[in-house]
């Protein structure tokens, strides 16, 4: 029996970036890539955002193949959630971009590394499904 699907607002603590998330992508020729990502940001009930600071394999893959699977951990109960996402667009301005950029700046400024860490874009993903694993 499969587990019931969940809503994004039910896993809010997992979106606060306490525990890094695992993300899996695949290139157009089906070569997978699994990595850690610091935080997946809540946008609204149907969307999340990932920060795009450096061009890496994850970014390259989602530009070719928009599907992404993330494993998020709730820092309160340590429950794991498998979230399937579809890349929608990259935003380089607007409220979501500003908020994510501000968080990055707040961390970088404390270390005097604001010139190194700059948000290039807020990649917006549509939430396809959320399942507790």
């Amino acid at each position: 029996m499969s587990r019931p699907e969940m809503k994004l607002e039910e896993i809010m603590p997992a979106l606060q970036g306490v525990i890094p998330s695992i993300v899996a992508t695949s290139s157009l020729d089906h070569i997978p890539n699994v990595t850690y990502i610091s935080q997946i940001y809540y946008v609204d009930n149907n969307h999340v955002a990932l920060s795009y600071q450096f061009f890496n394999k994850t970014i390259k893959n989602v530009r070719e193949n928009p599907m992404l699977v993330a494993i998020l951990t709730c820092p309160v109960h340590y429950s794991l959630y498998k979230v399937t996402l579809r890349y929608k667009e990259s935003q380089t301005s607007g409220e979501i971009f500003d908020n994510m950029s501000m968080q990055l700046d707040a961390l970088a400024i404390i270390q005097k590394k604001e010139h190194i860490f700059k948000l290039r874009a807020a990649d917006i993903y549509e939430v396809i499904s959320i399942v507790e694993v």
Partner: protein
Amino acid sequence: MSSFEVEKLSSQLAETNRKMEIFRKVSFELNKLVSLPDKLQTILAILDEQFGLANSLILIPDHDKQLLTVVAGHGYDASIIGQQVAFGQGLIGLAAVRKKHINLTGIRRKQHYLATVSNDGDLNFVKPIGLTDAESQVAIPLLSNDELVAVLMAESRNFCVYDQADENFLITLAQPLAVSIQNSMLYDSMEKKIKERTAELQHLNNTKDKFFSIISHDLRGPVTSFQSLTRLFSYYSQEGQSDKIETLCSKVDQSVDNLNHLLENLLDWSLSQTNGIQCCFEIIPLREFLQNICEIYQPNFSSKEINLIIDVDDAICIRVDRHTLATVFRNLISNSIKFTPRQGSIHITAVPESEMVRIELRDTGVGIDCKRLLSVFHLQEQRSTTGTEKEKGTGLGLTLVKEFTELNDGTITIQSDPGKGTLVTLLLPNGKQTQ
């Protein structure tokens, strides 16, 4: 309606009630007539009670210096008050510059991550003003008409302590908080201005009173002596001594001239002092200066048969303000006349002493007893004493003498031997030395 829905609605109602209660408490505190820091301190305590914000700060910006200063802190020791953060620095500085709230959690891990990916293993943090090991921080700018009024910052060593609903409520609460802080600051600045204006008006009023006192005091002596002359006129007229009346005529003429001259001087001076007592220093020959002053009192010396000796070398000069020092000597000489019995003497001497000139005014008057001598320069303890021939005074003379002597960079001391006389010693800047 299902029981689940009822439970959900009931929970929402309880939550709304809680928030209303917080609003009520905060509004009550905001309307209290207490100092702004006290008001903010209480609000931070309420936020702790309701949201568990165990460590929180409110900072007020100085837009000119681009700094934020802690005015209220909760959960820290007292030294946190007055600490400063630059605009743009850390979470607080960023919230201030961008006028947007920030909520961060997992701060230390993220810091390590940034240090690792930038190939910089050493964590080189700018020391924060609050907790050094905070894991969660939220900073909310308090804005009024888009103007930054303050920043509210809360932090914790725990993860995820500020949920979205609480954060949204704090943002809602920020608006009345900002308006109240702004009003309090405006009120404080108005109060400060009113105090400054009151002090200014008080000062002007005191100056005005002082001028009235100086003028009345300085005029009293010459007018009294003039009165003595007119009485003599009457007496000689009744006695039919016309030869003495003729002699008196020239004295009256001189006395009127002196009085007129003194009056003009006092009026000119008082008109020039609309901004308080201003000194205009100049080098003046002492002997001539003293002679001009003593001239005014010539009828008094004559009527009380007081022997005046001015034993001052022509070469001695002093660097003083002519008008204030004239008031000093007019007061001292009129006092000496007042308290010196008939056929007494007043002896004025001057000796240069390096950068100062020592001027001594010795009389053979009734003197001042020890107790009174201690308080002669204090206005609140001054009471006028009538002279040897019932001469009146204002009781302000010696207070002004001391104040004006000091305005001229001088000092004054009084020694007295009751029944034998008084010695007044003034030290004033030597005009020859300072040329």
